[in-house]
């Protein structure tokens, strides 16, 4: 060994010795013993829960912009008038202690709890509720909630006979009933009245508002926001809710939301115990990496059930788009879509796209939505022979001995499929569709687009077909009219029709009228079952597999109540507990 090598080895050896010494001096006491918590164990007061947030809040004003960070902020610092329990889907009292419904089902009389106060000590009264509705309906606010709180385009009339009573008069009957009030975010009149009068309510609660000026009527209040880093929430001592034993909620002292834009880094921090829970579900491909940590007892992978949202594949069904296209005779026909449904092996789809963590579906309502799922919809399952037979019926046969079908004019059976670049499951879905349809001689050209470009193409109707994911925000179909109604802004296959373009869309419109206005639950269910039947027959959107949802949670977390809607665990933050130090 020459002098150089000896010197290098000596330096390395000294380095190792110094490092080991430093580590032994800096090793913290073993924390594992303190973190053996059983999920859903009895409550413990105190402690800090750390979760992640993938994107930054753009505003704290949920009336102006419902989004994932703003919704989470609203859950932590706000309270609903009447809350829909995300686990049971039942409406339950919140700020409103009790309510009565008039015999004609058009007037709700709400009684607010006694002694409610904002975090600054000012009483919360019916005037705040009336003010919140005024803010939502003010056109200058441009609130997306405005559309949800109308019937036939007419707004609710909200009055306050006394400080604890609110009367909501509806222009018609409402199928969802008082649960519609789960959408209302309340705003403090004494804080924002001047802004609303000046037409500047939209700019209220901006992200640069000092935390001291942000009022809370929820379990926590924001105490610091470091842009790009984290939001820190401390317990709101004036929160109104108590548990069954009379203990003031929330149990936690503090909630920290760390902003981590990268999903891989987020997962690593969950594995290392720096996060107690993630903002949303883990990807199927990440489950295997969490299993070893689960075996060590530090983490629990919880299955929440089947997701309410699945990858959806649809064609552009606007007639003008195809008017001059040689494929017009068959590409928008329902039989063509039925053939595609038969051509997809949903089991293989689940294995490839969701690594086995998915269930075959045949319509937009998944088995995860137990209340509204119709198990009797026609299932056009895997059968290549049936698919080929249907295509032959459309005149699509192999006429030139290549691998693709052609119609009578010689036009090849092909189409372009647009998909969102960057979403691994959507990209895999597109690839599976291309490969599966190749087996029946239908050629698919997959084009991956950036999200903004894809959305613009869909909104403008400038696409042949696409595969995207609709994020479910509510399980009651009456709360998603934009998807079902032919006039809806989320009726993506033929958006915003002045009048229904087809008979079956008119039939769905009529049935949805019942779902949205009937107050008889059985009648609503019957009508929506029929909606699903019509949908499954005409297949404007094809569904193949709904993923199973998994969450990774630290074993120090208790008081969990899981939902398949986002945020799957944090929706019930005032009941959550932690034990032991991190």
């Amino acid at each position, binding site marked *: 060994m*020459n002098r*150089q*090598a000896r010197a*290098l080895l000596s330096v390395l050896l000294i380095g190792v010795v110094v490092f080991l010494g430093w*580590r032994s001096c800096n090793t913290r006491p073993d924390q594992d013993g303190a973190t053996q918590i059983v999920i859903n164990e009895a409550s413990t007061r105190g402690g800090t829960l*750390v979760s992640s947030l993938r*994107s*930054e809040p*753009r*505003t704290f004003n949920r009336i102006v912009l419902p989004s994932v960070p703003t919704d989470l902020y609203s859950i932590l610092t706000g309270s609903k008038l009447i809350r829909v329990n995300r686990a049971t889907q039942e409406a339950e009292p919140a700020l409103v202690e009790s309510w009565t419904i008039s015999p004609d089902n058009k007037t709700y009389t709400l009684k607010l709890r006694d002694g409610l106060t904002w975090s600054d000590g000012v009483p919360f009264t019916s005037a705040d509720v009336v003010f919140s509705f005024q803010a939502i309906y003010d*056109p200058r606010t*441009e609130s*997306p909630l*405005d*559309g949800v709180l109308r019937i036939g385009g007419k707004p609710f009339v909200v009055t306050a006979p006394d400080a604890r009573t609110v009367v909501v008069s509806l222009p018609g009957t409402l199928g969802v009933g008082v649960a519609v009030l789960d959408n209302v975010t309340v705003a403090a009149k004494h804080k924002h009245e001047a802004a609303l009068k000046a037409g500047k309510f939209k*700019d209220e609660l*901006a*992200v*640069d508002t000092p935390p001291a000026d942000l009022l809370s009527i929820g379990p926590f209040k924001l105490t*610091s926001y*470091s*842009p*790009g*880093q*984290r939001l*820190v929430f401390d317990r709101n001592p004036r929160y109104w809710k108590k548990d069954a034993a009379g203990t003031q909620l929330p149990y936690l002292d503090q909630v*920290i939301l*760390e*902003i*981590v*834009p*990268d999903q*891989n*880094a987020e997962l*690593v*921090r969950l*594995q*290392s115990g*720096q996060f107690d829970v993630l903002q949303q579900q883990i990807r199927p491909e990440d489950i295997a990496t969490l299993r070893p940590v689960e075996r060590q007892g530090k983490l629990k992978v919880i299955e929440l059930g089947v997701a309410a949202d699945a990858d959806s594949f649809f064609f552009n069904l606007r007639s003008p788009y195809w008017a001059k296209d040689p494929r017009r005779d068959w590409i928008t026909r329902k039989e063509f879509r039925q053939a595609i449904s038969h051509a997809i092996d949903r089991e293989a789809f689940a294995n490839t796209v969701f690594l086995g963590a998915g269930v075959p579906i045949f319509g937009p309502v998944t088995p995860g939505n137990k209340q509204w799922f119709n198990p009797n919809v026609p299932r056009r399952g895997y059968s290549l022979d049936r698919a080929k037979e249907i295509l032959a019926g459309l005149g699509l046969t192999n006429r030139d001995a290549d691998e693709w079908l052609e119609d009578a004019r010689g036009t090849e059976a092909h189409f372009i499929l647009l998909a969102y670049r960057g979403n691994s499951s959507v990209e895999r879905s597109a690839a599976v569709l291309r490969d599966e349809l190749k087996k029946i001689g239908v050629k698919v050209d997959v084009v991956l687009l*950036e*999200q*903004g*470009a*894809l*959305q*613009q*193409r869909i*909104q403008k109707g400038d696409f042949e077909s696409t595969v995207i994911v609709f994020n479910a925000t509510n399980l009651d179909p009456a709360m998603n009219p*934009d998807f079902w109604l032919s006039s*809806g*802004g*989320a009726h993506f296959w033929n958006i*915003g029709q002045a009048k229904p373009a087809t008979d079956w869309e008119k039939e769905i419109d009529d049935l949805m009228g019942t779902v949205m206005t009937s107050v008889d639950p059985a009648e609503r269910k019957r009508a929506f079952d029929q909606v699903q039947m019509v949908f499954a027959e005409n297949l404007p959107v094809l569904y193949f597999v709904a993923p199973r949802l998994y969450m990774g949670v630290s074993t120090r977390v208790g008081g969990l109540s899981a939902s398949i809607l986002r945020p799957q665990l944090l929706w019930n933050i005032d009941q959550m507990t932690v034990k032991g130090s991190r």
Partner: protein
Amino acid sequence: MGRYLLRRLGFAFLLVFVVSSAALLLTRIVPGDFGTFQCQDLTFEKCKAIRASLGLDRSILSQYLSWLGGVIRFDFGRSLLYSRPVNALIGERALNTAVLAVVALIAATLIGIPLGIYTGTRRGIVRSIVRAISLIGVSVPPLIGSLALVFLAARTGWLPVGGMTSSGGLELTWAAWFADLARHVPLPALALAIPMAATLERLQSEAIASASREPFVAASRARGVDRSRSILHHAWPVSLRPILGLYGVMIGALFSGSFVVEVVTSWPGLGRLMFDALKARDLFLVAGCAATGAFFLAAGTLLSDLLLAYTDPRVKSGEGA
């Protein structure tokens, strides 16, 4: 020298203007704008109203001219995404990026240059090992490097996995805050510094090897100057020219923020801001971030030119130009 500086300053302003204008115009013309995201699930009328209130219904020329009017007053407009002035957002994030950039630059210099001098002037197994490691450092993409470091930090617990400070940082004393920051900086700084150090090592190695073969180095050795002194005092200054040229680009790249490293390590810097702005098509924020990046690039190249002039007499006299 005065005229040279004026010329370079003029070039810097031109670069900032061209880059930010191009960024704004390109963001404006690509399919999908900020309104596309706002209009999801909304009726046509509501969408139209929102687009009008955001100014997205205006022509590209009108939008550009009004933005330009603001830029002349150093006002880069208001971010559509955050509803805050672009200047304020960039100010916050640029400082964070600067902290990271300075540490990464110092680390890369302290690692890369000495190793480059060593490998350029020595032979043996140690040299081969260093060269192999630097080749890996140059080849590994920043995403993989960052993730590997994050994984290492998570597994060992030696360093915080991400973020710039710990929670509760606002209540800390200055000294405690600085200590907290010092614990968070190494991981993202290393992720940035390793490929740069590797690049510097390779460049320095070649440059000093070449300079060592120059007659004046041999002459100094013939005069009895010892080998180390001859290398450091005679060969090294001459070998610095390509290194300093690279520094200009490195400073520009570092100070305009690396979005990959900042996203993976959750560092709230300019790169991440630019990334978020691009995703949301926040054209004013994109233009502001691009202008900042161009400014740092111009400043970096100016600084490296000045350093070059300082270290290489041929530049001052114009021989090397």
